[in-house]
């Protein structure tokens, strides 16, 4: 499929050299052809027996097509919204025990880099990662390490075909690529349409003002407790396509955390105020309370145990980064821990290499909030804080149903509190904007 991309010619991730008539308006056409097959099998040498995954074989078949790059230098977009994971589990005698088929839309970017003197295509970023979906197989994190052999073809194109293999937990993973990335540069035809004119330029007016702000920095001492999810396949026939009929299981999430969380707030005031007053104003709910996890690190270990109707028990542990976001209000702040594409992107936080529900099953189509908790601003300033987070409740997905329970507790120690006022310029526009 051809995708025409109008851009200033420069370097595209797949090979537009900067020297190619830089500065002239060109049309960049990227044609992506060829299949990409990721296949996996349970390997006794890698411990598939202990995990209950021997006899599992499956594949993720992708036919990526097209690429779109709005600006030079962007990596190649490899997307297939119709990719499918197909998995068969066989008994030692070769008889089919169960089958699982799941649509796994893939949308990731690949850039070609030279490593140890050889070109390879690496997965840069995965908005919708490759995985085995809800079937038994490698997780998104496992397949994020995939790289493809790359050879330059002509001035700008690449041949990404070839085979590569690696291990992922109890699986042997074999990748067969037939991908060719044909990049052509030609003169634009009608050029780029004029950008719609902005409304009549606003005459910006500034006003000097004072901004009151306060911040409490808390060190994360640890996180205790766990989050549990019990699940079972829904009734037939809806469970059949995922091989989930009669399956029951549980997921247990435990966490590690380190770093610092900053709880802060600010507002415009009429007169200069001291640090103690600013901190008191934040505690009293006179500012919108926000948190900042930028210098923190929270990771989850998700342990799954799945009992299948054929008597085989599958166990696996998957580790993933957990993201935090805040929903601050005056006087309170709701902290949310989560991940996956419905949150800020990344891997599915409830998937392991065993079959089981996805975040979409458990949390619906919205953000995958593993746990949430509310902090009252009045508690800020205490030397020690504990914050309990949970997200209990039932769910019914397209193939699995169950319930979530449990909670985790963040243990925090105050390391710094500061506040005061500083002069700022307020721009009169809509909405009101503050510039320092």
């Amino acid at each position, binding site marked *: *499929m*051809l*995708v025409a991309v109008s851009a200033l010619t420069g370097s595209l991730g797949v090979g537009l050299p900067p020297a190619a008539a830089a500065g002239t308006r060109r049309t960049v056409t990227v044609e992506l052809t*060829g*299949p990409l*097959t990721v*296949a996996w099998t349970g390997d006794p040498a890698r411990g598939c027996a202990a995990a209950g995954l021997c006899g599992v*074989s*499956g*594949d993720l*078949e992708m*036919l*990526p*097509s*097209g690429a*779109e790059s709005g600006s030079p230098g962007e990596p190649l977009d490899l*997307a*297939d*919204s*119709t990719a*499918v994971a*197909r*998995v*068969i589990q066989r008994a030692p005698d070769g008889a*089919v025990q169960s*089958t*699982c*088929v*799941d*649509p796994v*839309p893939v949308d990731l970017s690949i850039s070609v880099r030279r490593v140890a003197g050889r070109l390879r295509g690496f997965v840069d970023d995965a908005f*919708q990662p490759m995985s085995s979906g809800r079937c038994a197989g490698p997780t998104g994190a496992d397949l994020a390490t995939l790289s493809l052999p790359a050879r330059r073809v002509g001035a700008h194109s690449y041949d990404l075909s070839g085979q590569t293999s690696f291990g992922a937990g109890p699986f042997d993973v*074999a990748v*067969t690529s*037939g991908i060719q990335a044909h990049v052509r540069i030609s*003169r634009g*035809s*009608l*050029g*780029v*349409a*004029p*950008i*719609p*004119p902005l409304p009549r330029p606003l005459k910006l007016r500034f006003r000097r003002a004072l901004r009151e702000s306060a911040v409490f920095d808390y060190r994360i001492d640890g996180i205790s407790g766990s989050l549990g999810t019990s699940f079972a396949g829904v009734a037939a*026939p*809806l469970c*059949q*396509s*995922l091989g989930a009929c009669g399956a029951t299981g549980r997921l247990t999430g435990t966490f590690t955390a380190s770093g610092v969380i900053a709880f802060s707030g600010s507002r415009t005031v009429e007169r200069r105020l001291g640090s103690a007053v600013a901190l008191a104003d934040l505690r009293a709910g006179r500012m919108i309370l926000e948190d900042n996890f930028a210098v923190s690190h929270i990771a989850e270990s998700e342990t799954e145990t799945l009992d299948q109707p054929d008597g085989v028990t599958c166990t696996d542990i998957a580790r993933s980064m957990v993201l935090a976001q805040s929903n601050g209000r005056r006087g309170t702040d709701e902290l949310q821990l989560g991940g996956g*594409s*419905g949150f800020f992107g990344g891997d599915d936080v409830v998937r392991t290499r065993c079959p089981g529900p996805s975040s*979409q099953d458990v949390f*619906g*189509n*919205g953000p995958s909030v593993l746990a949430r908790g509310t902090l009252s601003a009045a508690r800020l300033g205490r030397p020690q804080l504990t914050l309990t987070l949970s997200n209990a409740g039932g769910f019914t997905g*397209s193939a699995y149903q169950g319930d979530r329970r449990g909670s985790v507790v963040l243990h925090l120690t105050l390391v710094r509190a500061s506040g005061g006022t500083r002069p700022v310029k307020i721009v009169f526009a809509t909405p009101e904007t503050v510039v320092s």
Partner: protein
Amino acid sequence: MNRLLSRLAVVALALALPAGAGARTAGAQTVEVSTGSSSGSFAGVFLGPGGSVVSEQSRPIQIDGALTVTFHGDAATGCAADGLCGYSGSVTWRPPASGQMIIVATRAHHHTSDSVELFLEGNGFPPDTGATSATVQSTAGSPSGAATCLDATATGLALDLPVRHGLVEFGLGGASPALLSDRCAGPRDPQILSQLPAPSLTLAALRRDGTVVDLSTNRPFAADGFAGTIDSTIAIRLGRANRANRPVNVTSNQGTRYAELTVDYRVRASGSLLEHVTGSANPAACGPLGACGVTGTETITTPGATGSGALTLFARTTIPRRRLLAAAGLSGARPPRGVTGTSSVTWDGDGTSQIALGQGANQCRQAAPASRGYALLDASHGRLDVSLLPFDQQPGPPISECPGPEDEAATTLASGELPLRALGRRSVSLVLRTGASFTDDGYSVRTDPDLTLTLTRVATHARTVTFPAGLTPP
């Protein structure tokens, strides 16, 4: 653009206006050039039929349940003749939990008509879409015996509900892409969806909040070589309507003016297209699809279908008319640079598709009507390139119950070219003889075309059109 989007784009194109009439698609929306003698402007139209939009109403819908068909080869309905006796399995369509219903009233020739469309895509990102999953066993599908076909695909993204005499037929038959469309053997939409309830509702009922449309059933079926059970638990609940609104005309003086040249053609298509199908040589790819060892052909024959189409070109308004005509092969002047356009021809006739796919002891053979064809025209660089689009990207349900690849993985099935100056003749014939090769999951396909298109020029129009700022001609 990925395969799903290309599917949708073609569906939208088919639902909108004849290609070449100045219509173009932008996602699921159609931008239509309003008619005018010497100039045109753009108005937003949401998948409505031709004419001016009188009102447009959207309301959220909630969808519960699923459709599951459990089947096996059935001798009583001719499985032996079609080679389907060795297949059994189940196919399930699971709709998204929510979507939108759009009711559009349009007025043309002093007559108001309504169209009702369901868009089955839930909120969130990535959005929740309907999906069809199939698990099919073939008893003698491989040299070693049984083979299992596993497949899943996004389906039923849009549902066109027929409106007749003020009554809306609320069935699933107008789903696009087809609901029971996958690469495994099994019954398809025509055999199954006609067995589902299709209650008729008045437009007034559709406009009432909380109306529940029950499409549930549990009944046996037997048709065209398969028998089994249809189990539908689908119910659609209509939510509160969003405020009815009349589309705002986005005509703007801030747009960019382009010269548009449209050359209308009558089309006659005759010949054949042979597809050679084989299971992939990569066991990892063909194994889970049960496609290892498959060999066979699909032959699409078009004895003499007729249709229409147009070559539509856009250029800067400063380009002289005779040079724009040269871009369409209608003048001896030097063709200008910077001409763009999207052009196509379609045809319809008494074509047939004959499929013969073998795998072990299973030899699936079917013949079915294949009436439609769709080709893209590209007039540039002094020649006219014609590309036959995959048949799966054309409206209508899949035609075969045999297992096999989906054509949509191909960018084109056949192509041909001729010098642009040949279009100076009123009638010109072009033979598509260049085949294509493509892979589709566990299958490899090579095409061998011999299709003749005869284009007869019937009219030429030139005018100036204004594209809103930010949009360029296709």
